[in-house]
């Protein structure tokens, strides 16, 4: 007689399964969990710790905090950061000093691991929150973080 009992149990479990999806169907007007991405671009705000892209913040008179100590370059596992520096005479102290010329950042090779920002002694680089990093031509992925003509902020030592 298990023939009819397992038909009955089978149908009972099928119906309870359908009740779950039915419940969702009836409450579907409560709104879907999916985000309408291209429409909600203005309102969409990522978390402030979101790792979008490494940037070097500059203050109003175009000064940054990077002393060119290359700690981030050593910490980076993928060789994403290259720092081009040369020794120049520092106008105030007259001594030869390591001045940063270009802080090159290959976004294409970056794995967003955050070790460079961890290793930077002077907090020169920060995470930006933008996630739309796709580009048409790969060379634009290689970025120079320090703006042209920017100088080191006074009072930031190695």
């Amino acid at each position: 007689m298990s023939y009819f009992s397992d038909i009955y149990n089978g149908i009972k479990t099928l119906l309870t399964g359908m009740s779950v999806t039915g419940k969702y169907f009836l409450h579907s007007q409560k709104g879907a969990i999916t985000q309408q991405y291209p429409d909600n671009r203005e309102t969409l705000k990522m978390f402030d710790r979101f790792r979008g892209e490494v940037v070097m913040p500059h203050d109003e008179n175009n000064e940054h905090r990077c002393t060119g100590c290359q700690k981030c370059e050593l910490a980076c596992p993928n060789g994403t950061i290259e720092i081009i520096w040369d020794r120049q005479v520092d106008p105030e102290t007259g001594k030869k000093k390591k001045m940063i010329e270009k802080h090159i950042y290959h976004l294409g090779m970056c794995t967003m691991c955050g070790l460079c920002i961890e290793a930077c002694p002077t907090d020169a680089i920060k995470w930006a929150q933008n996630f739309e990093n796709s580009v048409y031509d790969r060379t634009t992925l290689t970025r120079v973080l320090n703006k042209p003509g920017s100088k080191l902020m006074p009072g930031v030592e190695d």
Partner: protein
Amino acid sequence: MNLSLSITKNIHDWLFNMMPETAASLVEMTIIALVYLAVFAVTGLFLVLLERKVAAWFQLRLGPNRVGYHGIFQTIADALKLVSKELTGTVNADKFLYNLAPYFVIITALMALAVLPFSAEFQAFDINIGIFFLIAISSIGVIGILLAGWSSNNKYALIGAMRSGVQTISYELSVGLSLLTVIMITGTLQLSEIVEVQRNGWLIVQGHIPAIFAFMIYMIAGTAETNRAPFDLVEAESELGAGFHTEYSGMKFAYFFLAEFINMFLIASIATTIFFGAWLSPFGITESLPWLGVFWFLGKTLVLVFLMMWFRWTFPRLRIDQLLTLEWKYLLPLNLMNIVLMAIIVWLNLTIQF
């Protein structure tokens, strides 16, 4: 309000006094064919959109909402895309059979629609072997699938096609038998006669317990017949990729896709005709407005189509041998018991008549 019904009459008369007998009926048939083709292409597209929307509501999503207001024109956009797609195929596919297969499937799907009684006047082809014709037609569709699977020279397609062959042949049995149990009450195969018998109570009410069993078995077998829901082994995404229509693209794929939805509509409309009195309103409340019959028919069919969609988005897939044990060990014996039960009821005429 029988203006619309008289349209067919005066077109009919206008044609017949215009041309000789045969030419007129030929022209009339082509007009009907064109009208049916257009109407069911549109219903096919509508059903695809309905399926995607219903699936979305089940799954906490919104479904298509980009093309047109709330995605109404989404399927039209899909159809245009499919029409403009290149008809690729495998290198050493069997060219003739490969191209023939889609037409098998789409033609059988559309042919079966001719017999359905949408309303008192809107029935194109009222032959006295209605149900028998429907069952015969639905078995030809399988040949198209088998041809497609074998001729596209793709191992997955072949497995998919063999599965569909086995599945459809065994499930036709219970489709036929479950319809048979209910036909015992009406005594006739002609669809319009069946609807007449249901004037005093839908067959599902007249045949009460065995009819409900027959309806349940029919719905299970019907979903299996159209390779949908828990029985969609033919194009099991996670096992065979896209099953028999893996190698088809563009318009040929559109035929398969459309045929599947029209088959679903067909199974649902046979169920409404047999079990729920096609265009009869419950207890004859809207008999005064005959043209309302079409809406009753479509309403009931949409409820059943929704039920089949509900199956699809809830149940996992059966394995091929479980599929066959379900048919041969469970549905068939139940069907035969049901026929005996119905025979006793009809013999002692215990059917409920209003």
